[in-house]
């Protein structure tokens, strides 16, 4: 897919995730919208995966440490054919396997996450195994910025650089919001890039809602051999739906009928614009 097509894909994923959250009347809207471009770049371009063989040994691994933003992930996995698209309708319904957090009963999900601060230690283990077994796969771990307050991340950060895991990529969805407000008010994180660098990571900052920048950064990994990479993806929580952008309450706001209509129309407009631009180029 070219950049234009990836951007369209991201907008479609956003439409889909809003639809399943609206249907279920539950979900983490803001964080799912903020990381949709990251997932789109990874799943449709960067990662070496095969939906027909979810357990293929040399597949790249993706760990959603910010597991609450599962809706974007469910929509991506369904779109890629890891499971039937109709199953999205069961999201959060009684007895479903598409629950409100990643669940490895579902093909394409490596590990169950949802309690924050678990993803990076797991990813360090996976990347270490690849090194020990001389396997080519990489491990991508998506974390929240509020999540950085969990000490386990820093324990894992130490281990990742200690074991020189240049096959490990940490991504922080730096949308600057958590549940109770801004990250800097709740528990200050800055200077966050310097902290990761001090822990021995190669740090790259990008606009995390710009697919082009994301692709560049992901494809350049590892920039420095023997070092894990931390991609500081500066994003906007609620991205793509103007009235949800940067609004803390949209962390787990569920859309009413009117909001869904407006949001879908806005994203439809984005797609139209992208398609027109695509034809001009």
């Amino acid at each position, binding site marked *: 897919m070219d950049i234009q097509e990836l951007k369209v894909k991201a907008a479609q994923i956003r439409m889909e995730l809003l639809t399943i959250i609206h249907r279920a009347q539950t979900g983490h809207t803001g964080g799912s919208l903020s990381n949709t471009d990251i997932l789109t770049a990874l799943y449709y371009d960067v990662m070496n995966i095969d939906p027909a063989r979810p357990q293929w040994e040399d597949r790249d691994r993706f760990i959603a440490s910010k597991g609450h933003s599962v809706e974007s992930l469910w929509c991506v996995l369904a779109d890629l054919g890891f499971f039937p698209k109709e199953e999205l309708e069961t999201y959060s319904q009684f*007895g479903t396997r598409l629950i*409100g*957090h990643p*669940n490895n009963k579902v093909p394409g999900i490596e590990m169950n996450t949802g*309690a924050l601060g678990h993803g990076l230690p797991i990813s360090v283990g996976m990347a270490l195994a690849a090194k020990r077994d001389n396997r080519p796969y990489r491990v991508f771990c998506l974390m929240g910025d509020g999540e950085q*307050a*969990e000490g386990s991340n820093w324990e894992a950060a130490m281990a990742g650089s200690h074991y020189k895991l240049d096959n490990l990529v940490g991504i922080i969805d730096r949308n600057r919001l*958590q549940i109770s407000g801004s990250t800097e008010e709740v528990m200050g994180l800055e200077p966050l890039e310097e902290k990761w660098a001090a822990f021995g990571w190669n740090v790259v900052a990008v606009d995390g809602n710009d697919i082009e920048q994301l692709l560049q950064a992901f494809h350049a990994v590892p920039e420095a051999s023997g070092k894990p990479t931390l991609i500081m993806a500066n994003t906007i929580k609620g991205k793509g739906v103007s009235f949800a952008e940067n609004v803390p309450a949209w962390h787990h706001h569920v859309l009413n009928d009117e909001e869904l209509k407006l949001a879908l129309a806005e994203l439809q407009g984005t797609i139209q614009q992208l398609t027109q631009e695509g034809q001009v180029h």
Partner: protein
Amino acid sequence: MNKIPNRQVICDTLLDLARDDRDIMVLASDSRGSAAMAPFANTFPEQFVEVGIAEQNIVGMSAGLAHSGKKPFVTSPACFLSMRSIEQVKVDVAYSRTNVKLIGISGGISYGALGMSHHSVQDIAVARAIPGLAIILPADRHETKKLTEALVKYNGGVYVRIGRNPVEDVYESDDYSFEIGKAVTLKKGTELTIIGTGETVRIALDAANALADEGVSARVLNMHTIKPLDKEAILMAARETGRIITVEEHSIHGGLGAAVAEVVVQNHPVPIKILGIPDEPAIAGKTAEVFEHYGITQQNIKQIALDMIGKAGTV
């Protein structure tokens, strides 16, 4: 139907008490909304501490605050508070005997479709194994108010677990005697005893009322304190009614049922049926759906009771 969740009652009560007791402190881990503690944070910013998403730190910090004479109330989702920070609870709170109140909110399967990471159905088992830690589950909003008042006076480590949504009242008002460690007999009965804790007490009471319609006399105990356990009330029930059913929003391993069984089997063995979540990641769904799935319902309790007393088939 009551519309006030227990978490809001805790906030309201602490708001009342904190005005005159400047040592009361509330701590949250990006959880002031889920714990309904935003009004407290806004009214008493000097008595409120935000630690961010860091459950180990919140318990350790609280132990430090308590050591310096503060009365910290830690309000955080039960799943993380009871498990993520359990070593801090064991060493910094229980072992060091600091005056920390751990308020686990949205416990049990309150977070239905969010899955096992967010369910808190091992918390009682884990907490029970820690010496010196009291464990309390209030039954409704009235009991929650009385409990919160009692907690401010109680000196020591306590784990409290409440759910997320409002529950139907068990009591008509808060005009009754509440004592930590003392079970409340909600209904007298002779043929069997149904023991509930926390928000399953209402279900136990409904089942007993349904049994009364069948001419069966069931006693109901509200075992709000699981530790220290009211052994006397349990043994009296064993001796006088001969059969016990326990009902809890918790794994069948290590919770209320296990605690009751340990007492009964070592002192006055009688048949016990333990109702709770089986040994599996609980099915996804809303509380009512999950309870229905596992038979944590008044109908099922009634059926079990009739089976136990040999009146099966009358349903």
